[in-house]
C-alpha cells in the first residue's frame, strides 16, 4: 500500500474509531469454551473490578486535591507529615484484599494443574515454524501430521487480499472431540515455542528436551484459533494454532479416514511416480515448507538460493542428505522426520526441475527410503 493510501486509511480509521470500537474490536478477554476458561475470565474480571474501584478512590482523592488544594486558590499548606495509624491501615487493608484475591486464584490454579484421567492424549511438538500433532495410542503407527500456516506469501506481502482468517489459518488443523478431557503433551524440536488457544485457556511453553502437560475439555463445537506465544525466530508471527472441536462421531470418522490415508501413503511409497505427478505434489510442498526461507522463485533469502545451486544441480545423494538431515548450525532443518518419503521425493524432484534447474532428474519415494536406510 502506498504511503498516501496509508494516510487515507489512517484518517478513515480515526474518524470511525468510536463506531469500530463498539462494532468489531474485541477489548476484553474471552470467557472461551471451557469451564477453566470461564473461571479464569471471572477471576480476571474480579481483579479488574477491584483494581478499578481502588483506582477510582485513589485518583478521586488525588484529583480532589489537585482541584481544591491549589496554591492559586490561596491555600495555606498544612504541615502534617506522618501518622502511624494511617500507615498501618493502608498496609493491612490491601493485604486483606490480596488474601481475598488469592483464594479463588489458588483454587483455579489447582484445577488447571489437574491433568489426571484424560481420555485422549495428543503430543504437540513445536518446530520452527509449524506445529506437529500426534494422537498417542498403542497402535505403533499413530496418526501424526504437521500443521502449517496456509496464508499465502502474496497475502502477507500485500499483493493479494487478506482473507478473514489472515495468519490464523492452517493447512491441517488439530481435531479434537468435544466434552472430552484431552491431555496435551507439549514439547519442541528446536527452540522454545508456546502453544496457545485463548478460547481454550491453554497456554504452555514447548521446551526442547522436556515435556509439559496441559489439558482442556471443550464444551462447544467450533473452530478455535491461537498462535505461538514465545519468540521462536524470524517467523514466530507465522505459526498459528487452529483447533476443530467436533462431535465424538465426527471425530471417530475423521480418525478412521486419517488411518486409511496413512495406510495408502505407506503403500504408495513403493509405487513409481511420473515426473508430472512428482512435480505437482513437489510444488505444493515447496510452497508450504520451503518458500519462506528459499523464496518463491528459489532465489534464496534466509536460506540459500535453490535456482542454479550446486546442491540442486549436483549429486542427488548430497541433495537427499541436506534435505533429510538438515545442515547443522544453520536454519536448514532435518526434514527427514517431517515429510513422508513420497513428499520428500516430490519436493526434491521439483527443486531439481523448477526455477531453471532443468536437470531432468526424477527422484522416486523408494530412492528416499533406500537413502534413509543407508
Amino acid at each position: 500500500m502506498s504511503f498516501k493510501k496509508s494516510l487515507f486509511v489512517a484518517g478513515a480509521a480515526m474518524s470511525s474509531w468510536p463506531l469500530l470500537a463498539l462494532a468489531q474490536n474485541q477489548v476484553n478477554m474471552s470467557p472461551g469454551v471451557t469451564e477453566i476458561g470461564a473461571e479464569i475470565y471471572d477471576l480476571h474480571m474480579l481483579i479488574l473490578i477491584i483494581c478499578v474501584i481502588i483506582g477510582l478512590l485513589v485518583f478521586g482523592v488525588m484529583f480532589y486535591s489537585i482541584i481544591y488544594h491549589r496554591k492559586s486558590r490561596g491555600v495555606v499548606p498544612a504541615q502534617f507529615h506522618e501518622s502511624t495509624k494511617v500507615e498501618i491501615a493502608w498496609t493491612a487493608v490491601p493485604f486483606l484484599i490480596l488474601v481475598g484475591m488469592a483464594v479463588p486464584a489458588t483454587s483455579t490454579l489447582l484445577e488447571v494443574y489437574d491433568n489426571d484421567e484424560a481420555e485422549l492424549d495428543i503430543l504437540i511438538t513445536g518446530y520452527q515454524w509449524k506445529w506437529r500433532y500426534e494422537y498417542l495410542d498403542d497402535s505403533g503407527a499413530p496418526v501424526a501430521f504437521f500443521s502449517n500456516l496456509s496464508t499465502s506469501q502474496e497475502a502477507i506481502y500485500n499483493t493479494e487480499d487478506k482473507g478473514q482468517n489472515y495468519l490464523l489459518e492452517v493447512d491441517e488443523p488439530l481435531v479434537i472431540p468435544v466434552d472430552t478431557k484431552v491431555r496435551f503433551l507439549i514439547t519442541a524440536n528446536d527452540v522454545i515455542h508456546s502453544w496457545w488457544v485463548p478460547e481454550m485457556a491453554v497456554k504452555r511453553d514447548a521446551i526442547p528436551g522436556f515435556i509439559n502437560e496441559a489439558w482442556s475439555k471443550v464444551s462447544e463445537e467450533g473452530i478455535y484459533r491461537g498462535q505461538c506465544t514465545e519468540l521462536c525466530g524470524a517467523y514466530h508471527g507465522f505459526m498459528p494454532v487452529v483447533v476443530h472441536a467436533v462431535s465424538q462421531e465426527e471425530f471417530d470418522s475423521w480418525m478412521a479416514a486419517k488411518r486409511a490415508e496413512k495406510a495408502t501413503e505407506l503403500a504408495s511409497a513403493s509405487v513409481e511416480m511420473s515426473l508430472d505427478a512428482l512435480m505437482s505434489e513437489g510444488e505444493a510442498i515447496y510452497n508450504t515448507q520451503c518458500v519462506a526461507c528459499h523464496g518463491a522463485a528459489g532465489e534464496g533469502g534466509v536460506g540459500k538460493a535453490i535456482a542454479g545451486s550446486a546442491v540442486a544441480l549436483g549429486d542427488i545423494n548430497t541433495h537427499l542428505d541436506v534435505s533429510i538431515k538438515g545442515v547443522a548450525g544453520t536454519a536448514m532443518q532435518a526434514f527427514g522426520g517431517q515429510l513422508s518419503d513420497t513428499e520428500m521425493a516430490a519436493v526434491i524432484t521439483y527443486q531439481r526441475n523448477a526455477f531453471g534447474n532443468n536437470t531432468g532428474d526424477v527422484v522416486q519415494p523408494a530412492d528416499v527410503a533406500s537413502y534413509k536406510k543407508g
Partner: protein
Amino acid sequence: MGAHHHGPARGITRWLFTTNHKDIGTMYLWFSFAMFILGGAFAMIIRAELFQPGMQLVEPGFFNQMTTLHGLVMVFGAIMPSFVGLANWLIPMMIGAPDMALPRMNNWSFWILPPGFLMLASTLFMEGGAPAFGWTFYAPLSTTYAAPSVTFFIFAIHVLGMSSIMGSINIIATVMNMRAPGMSYMKLPLFVWTWLITAFLLVAVMPVLAGAVTMMLMDIHFGTSFFSAAGGGDPVLFQHIFWFFGHPEVYIIILPAFGVVSQIIPAFSRKPLFGYASMVYATASIAFLSFIVWAHHMYTVGMPVAGELYFMYATMLIAVPTGVKVFNWISTMWRGALSFETPMLFSIGFLVLFTIGGFTGLMLSIAPADFQYHDTYFVVAHFHYVMVAGAVFSMTAAVYFWLPKWTGRMYNETMGKLHFWVSFVGFNITFFPQHFVGLAGMPRRVPDYALQFADFNMMSSIGAFVYGASQILFLYNVIATIVAGEKVSDEKVWDGAEGLEWTVPTPAPYHTFEVPPKVDTAAAHG
C-alpha cells in the same frame, strides 16, 4: 570559603579525563538521551511496520532485531545511565559531599559505556544481523540458533554490567562515607535512599547477568550444554538465571524514579513528604521482595504447582509496599498548596500512569489469569506503563526540576507544559489500546497480525509517532535553556524545594561543599 577554586580544564580533555561528578553526570545524561533517541528510532520502525497488517517496510528477521535492540538500548542505554547521571549530579550535592567517593573509577565507569554500545550497535552491520532473540534472550534461540553477532552482544553486556557495578559501588561508598556531619541515614533525601538501595540491587544482580551470558558463551563456543537438554542441561535454567537478574532489574529502574518524585511532589505541594520513614521501609521491602519473585515471569514454563503458588503469593505481596508509596505521595499532596509547573505535571503523570501499570502488574501476578495474559500485548502495555510513564516520565520531571540549578537558566515553561501534554496524550494513545489487543489475543514480538487487531494497532502507531515527536520538543527546550534561557540566580529556584542542593549558588559551581555544610539536626529532610 578559603579554598581556592579552579574551573574545568579546556577542550576535549576536560571530558575525557574529568573526575568531576558534575561533568560525569552531564556526560551520562547526554549519553542516555542519545540512546533514548536511538532506542526510540527502533521503536518507530517497529510501530511503522505494525501500522497495518501485512509486511510493508522490513523483513520479519529485521523486525526481531529491532524489538531486541529497542529493549536492550532503552533498558541498558537510556534508563539506567540516565539515573546514574542524575545520581552523579545530585548525590554529592544532596549529602553535602565535595564529589563522589571514587572519582577516577567514576570516569572509567562512564567511558566504557560508549564503546560497549558501539559494539552492540555494530552487530546491525554484521553478517546474519544483530541479535534477534528479544531483550530477554532466551536460550536456545540465543545460543544454538543465534546469528554469529551474539558473541559481540555477550561482550557488550559484560561491558555494560561492569560499568553498572562500578557506578553502584561508587554510590554506596559515597553515601556511606561522605555524608556531611549531622546527615544521618534517616535524614537522607529520599532520592539518595532509593539510589542506595538500588545500588545494592545492582551489585547483587549484575554479576548474575554476567554469569548467564558467560554460560551462553560457553555453550556457543566451548561445547558446554548448560542450556541444552541434549547435553544434560536445561533451557529453563537460563530463564531462572535471567529473571533472577531481570526482576530486581525492573526495580533498579523504578526505585530511583520513586526517589525523584518523592523530591518533586513535596516541593510543589509546599508540604513535607508524608511518611518519610515508611517510604524508606517500603523501598527496602520492595527491594527485598524483588529477589524472591523472579519466576512470575515464567508461569507457563511448566513449574510444579507448589512453585506457581509460592511465586504467585510472593508477587502479590509487592502490591503492599508499592501501595504504601502511592498513598504517601497522595497524602503529601493532600491539603498542600499545589502548583503545576512542568516537573510537577510529569510527576503527577507518573503517579497516575505508574499506578495503572501497578494494577496491571497485580493482575499479571495471578498465575491462572496470567496463562491468558502471558506474552501478549497486555504485558507490553503493562511494562511500558511502568517503564515509560514510570521511569522516563520521572526522569523527565527530574531534568526540568534540576536544570535551572545545573545551568543557572530557566527553561521555557509553556513549552515544558506542551511537552508534558503531548507526551501524556501520545503515550496513552500508544499503550492503552495495547491492553485491549493483548486481552483479545495478540501475542507480543510479532511483525504481523490478524485483521481483528488492525484498528488498535494503527491507533497505537499514531500515538507512538506523537510521543516520539514530543521528545524533539524536549531536546529543543533543554538546548534553548542552556544557550539562551532566562537567567536565575536564586539559590532555591523553586520556593518549595528543600535540601542541601538548593543551598549552593545557582548555577551550581564546578566545586561544591569543599567545606562540609552543617546539617541542622532538627531540620526536616528534603
